[in-house]
Every structure is written in structure tokens, then in C-alpha cells.
């Protein structure tokens, strides 16, 4: 090794040392299986979606059991958020921001239901049930038909009516 490459390595070493100088380096390694257990993130391209599938027909019964008390029959609203309808209302004085009229990505439904719903017992639905409920909520918004089967490939391919309705304020 020539002198110049030795000093080059030394400089690189110095930079690396400086960069982590403020870190005592106490993070513990995490295994891939541990990460899979706690990673709930579903991206708009579908990455993060688990195996499984479900149809709107299957979702209808689940909706009646788990969702109707807060979101009303067919998601038209109850004591909590209205999920369906409101199409064409966004530019009016009474905009109704529902899944069908407002949400830009269908993948968000799966992500949110898996995280937070049903409100009183989050984490109790299987992936198949979440796909089915997602399909049902899209069905009542006339975005998919009742027999459409959603899975990790079909869900990110669903195009939402308001997909082009958003601009970014933050500019990277």
C-alpha cells in the first residue's frame, strides 16, 4: 500500500469517526423476523401488504359486525366518519370527504384498518378480513364491483377517483 492511499484511508477513518462521535452506539441489532412482526407500513405501491385476499361480498358481513355501529349502513355515516358517497362535493360549500370522494390511495384503507380498526378491538382482524373490508368500502363507493377480489397485487392497482386531487405543499 502506498503512502498516499494510507493517508487517504486515515482521512476516511477520521470522517467516519467524526460522524458517529456523538453516538455511543447503543442501538441493538434487530432481526428480519422481529421487523416483520412490528412493521405495519403499507406503501402506495403495495409494498408491506401481506398475503391473503378478500371480496366485497365477504366484507359486507364483516362490516355489519364490526363497523356499522359507528359508520352507518353502507358507510353513509353514523356517530363517526362517513365512508361512502360525497362524490363531486369537494368544490362545494359542503364538501364530504369520504373514502370514495377524497382518499387518493386505496392502500391507505388496508394500512389504516389494520392499525386502528375496529376501534374497540384493533388487531383482531385477519389479513383476509382486512382485504374483504377494504373491498367492501371500495364497493360501496362504486370503485370496485362486489365480486372483485383484493390482494397484495390487486389493491395497489385500484385507482381512486380523487387520485389527482392533491398537490404537495412540501417540496423535497
Amino acid at each position, binding site marked *: 500500500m502506498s503512502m498516499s492511499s494510507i493517508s487517504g484511508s486515515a482521512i476516511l477513518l477520521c470522517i467516519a469517526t467524526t*460522524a*458517529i462521535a*456523538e*453516538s*455511543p*452506539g*447503543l*442501538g*441493538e*441489532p*434487530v432481526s*428480519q423476523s*422481529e*421487523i416483520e412482526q*412490528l*412493521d*405495519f*407500513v*403499507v*406503501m*402506495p405501491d403495495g409494498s408491506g401488504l401481506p398475503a391473503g385476499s378478500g371480496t366485497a361480498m365477504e366484507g359486507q358481513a364483516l362490516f355489519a359486525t364490526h363497523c356499522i*355501529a*359507528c359508520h352507518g349502513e353502507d358507510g353513509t355515516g353514523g*356517530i*363517526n366518519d362517513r365512508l361512502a358517497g360525497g362524490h363531486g362535493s*369537494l*368544490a362545494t*360549500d*359542503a*364538501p364530504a*370527504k369520504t*373514502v370514495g370522494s*377524497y*382518499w*387518493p*390511495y386505496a*392502500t*391507505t384503507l388496508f*394500512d*389504516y384498518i389494520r*392499525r*386502528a380498526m375496529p*376501534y374497540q378491538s*384493533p388487531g383482531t382482524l385477519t389479513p383476509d378480513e382486512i382485504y374483504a373490508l377494504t373491498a367492501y368500502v371500495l364497493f360501496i363507493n362504486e370503485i370496485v364491483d362486489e365480486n372483485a377480489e383484493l390482494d397484495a397485487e390487486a389493491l395497489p392497482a385500484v385507482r381512486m377517483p380523487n387520485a389527482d*386531487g*392533491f*398537490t*404537495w*405543499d*412540501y417540496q*423535497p
Partner: protein
Amino acid sequence: MKTSPDDFVPAAGNGLLDRRVFLRAGAAGSLGLLAASAGAQERPAWAKLPGEGMGPAGAPSKHEAHIRRGHLSLQTGTTGSGASRTPLEFLDGIITPSRLHFERHHSGIPDIDPRLHKLVIHGLVRRPLEFDVDALVRYPAVSRIQFLECSGNSGVLTAAEPVQASCGSIHGLVSASEWGGVPLSVLLDEAGVEPRGKWLVADGADAAMMSRSVPLEKAMDDAIVALYQNGEPLRPANGYPMRLFLPGWEGNISVKWLRTIKVTDGPAMTRDETSKYSDLREDGSARLFTFPMGVKSVITSPSPGLTMRQRGVYQIAGIAWSGAGRIARVQISVDGGNSWADAALDEHVLPKCLTRFRAAWNWDGGPSVIMSRALDETGAIQPDRGSWFDGQSRGNFYHYNAVHAWQVGADGESTHVYV
């Protein structure tokens, strides 16, 4: 030093006095105080016997028991989703007592055992890592005295008619604290963000596993993983044992009960950042990622419930803040915006923090509309109400920061008015 109204120089119409009264040592403190009366020596009842002993933790005076978080708005059918608001009208200074910090929860306050809680950083990193509280407290700590504001704060001001409520009930989704913790950049550097990593997705350990996407740029700039609030471990309602804190940005993104950070190549488009905290426009389009909180101010005293019982000199006090940096100037009007004068700013003018302002007002007992208007160091000016609505959907109530007015009536009571 004793002051009298004759000492004061008018600065604007309807009795607003020059702010220099607050720059003279002691003058502010003497406003409204009566000179001690001479007479025979005597003791108040509470000075005739030794007082109570010490205790393991303090509590406010029983005479201040009315100072409580107000306007609890619960989402129907839940016991833990909703908001409570800081009672701004009863507070002074710039630090919000932790017990009075506003709350906004999406599925209640989780009861987290810190020994079982970990923060996991994964995704586009070279070394996925986990950190528990014991590890994080060994990192070089930083402190930030900064505000946190929910982007729905003051949203009720988009109503057609002015809502009659206390200052805190209207504007109390803002608080300020000393947040202590570890720079997020240090933890991300330790994990080694890959070049493709541009965003991160943070989620909490609450039952909603509330999640938001954060640009890596902000995460590496001034974000911290906070462990302390006003010198003590975070309160459970504020994310115990650890939370994300992103200075100056809408509160929802400072994810509480921080559980995972996944480095990604783009935003996850979570429910909260798309369907909730996005800003609908008049033309039906909407803005995503409206992160910084705009420059804003509000008069906290006088305000509804704080009655002015006689004409004469009063202190107008309030708070101003900006997500872009320091407050440069606050102007006050006591004649409905016809004339303005500068308020005095308290000593601590910190970036992305509440700044306390004060003005002296010689009230003649007549009806008066009082307002404040803030400017920040970037030159941004708090908009008037009409300008704020330009281009906004009537259905949007996020990021409301327009100039706010109280009307002081001849009876000394303040009410909320639009100007």
C-alpha cells in the same frame, strides 16, 4: 417605582400606551398594584402558625383549581379520542405546565411499561437497530424550548358566526415546553440511511398505531426523540416514554409513544396525512404535507371570563409564535384595527417557540375591539381573516392563523368578534 396613567405616552388610538412602559424595570409589575397601606403591624391568618410540611410532589394552589384543561371534545362513542385544550387565559410566560399541555389522541393514552418499550429503526438502513429508554438516556442530550400546535387549532374560527368561548377553548391546541431528548439524526446515522432513503414513516404504540410520514430532510435537521418534558419524563398524555418532536410543524406529525421508524423512498400516504391533515381548497383540490405552522398571535388577557372591573390602565398580554423561526414583532390595536402600536416582547424570544408579548392600555370604559398581529423573522405576517380564506374551501379548518379580535364591552366583559 410607582406609575400612574399620566406617565404613559399614547402609542395608538383609544388609549393604547407606548410599549416602553414595559421596558422600564419594574414598571410592568407595578401595573394595577396598589401601594402598600401604612398602619399597625398585623399578620394574615396564614402567617400566624407554621405552614404545612413538604411532600413528594407539588400541586397548584387550591385557589387556582379552576385552571384546568378545558373544552374536552370527545369523538362520539369513544373515551379516549379527541382533544383537550390549554387554558391560555390563565397562564403567563412561555412554558406550559405539563399538566395543562393540550391533548389530541386518536385512541386514548396507552399505559406503556418503559421496560418493555423499544424504538425500532428499520427500512432503508444498513443496520436495523432498536433502542430502549435505558440506551437513549445515555446519548448526548439536547433541549428545545418550543411550541407544539395542532393544525386544527383555532379551526372553529372558520364558522360563519364567532363562537363564544374562552381563549383556551378557541386557541388552546397550542402549548410550549422544554423538550429534552436525542437528536433523531444521531440515531439515523447510527442505523446508516441508504441513499434511496428520502422519507421515514413513524408510528406510535397507541391502539390506533397512529402513523405519519416525515421527510428525511426534517428528520436530519432539528427533529428529536423526546424523553423529557419540562425537566421530567414525558407525561403519558404526551408520549411517555418517548415521542417524536418536529419543531414548528403541525402537531400530529410529532408522533407520540414512538414505536417504529421505517426509512422509505417516499411517503406512505397514511390515513392521517391524506384524509385528515390535508388542506382542502375552494376548487376541490387539496394540499398534502402542509407542515409548518404559520405565524400567529392571540391576546390571552383580557379575554372572555377575565372581567375588567373599572376603567384605567390594564396590561394586554398574549402569545405569538411561528413555525418558521423567531417572532420579530407583535402589533396591537385597541380600536378595531384603525391604529396599531408595537407590543413589548418578553426577554425569551426563541425560534419556533411561544413569545410572550405585552402592551399597556388605558381603558376609558367604552366598547373596544382589541387585536394582535405578529410578524416573524422571515418577514411573514399574520394574515387578516379575509385574506386567510382566499382560495380555501369552506370545509377546511386546518392551519387557521388569521388575526383574532376580542370586543371588550362597557361592562368589562370580552366577547369574540370577527373584524
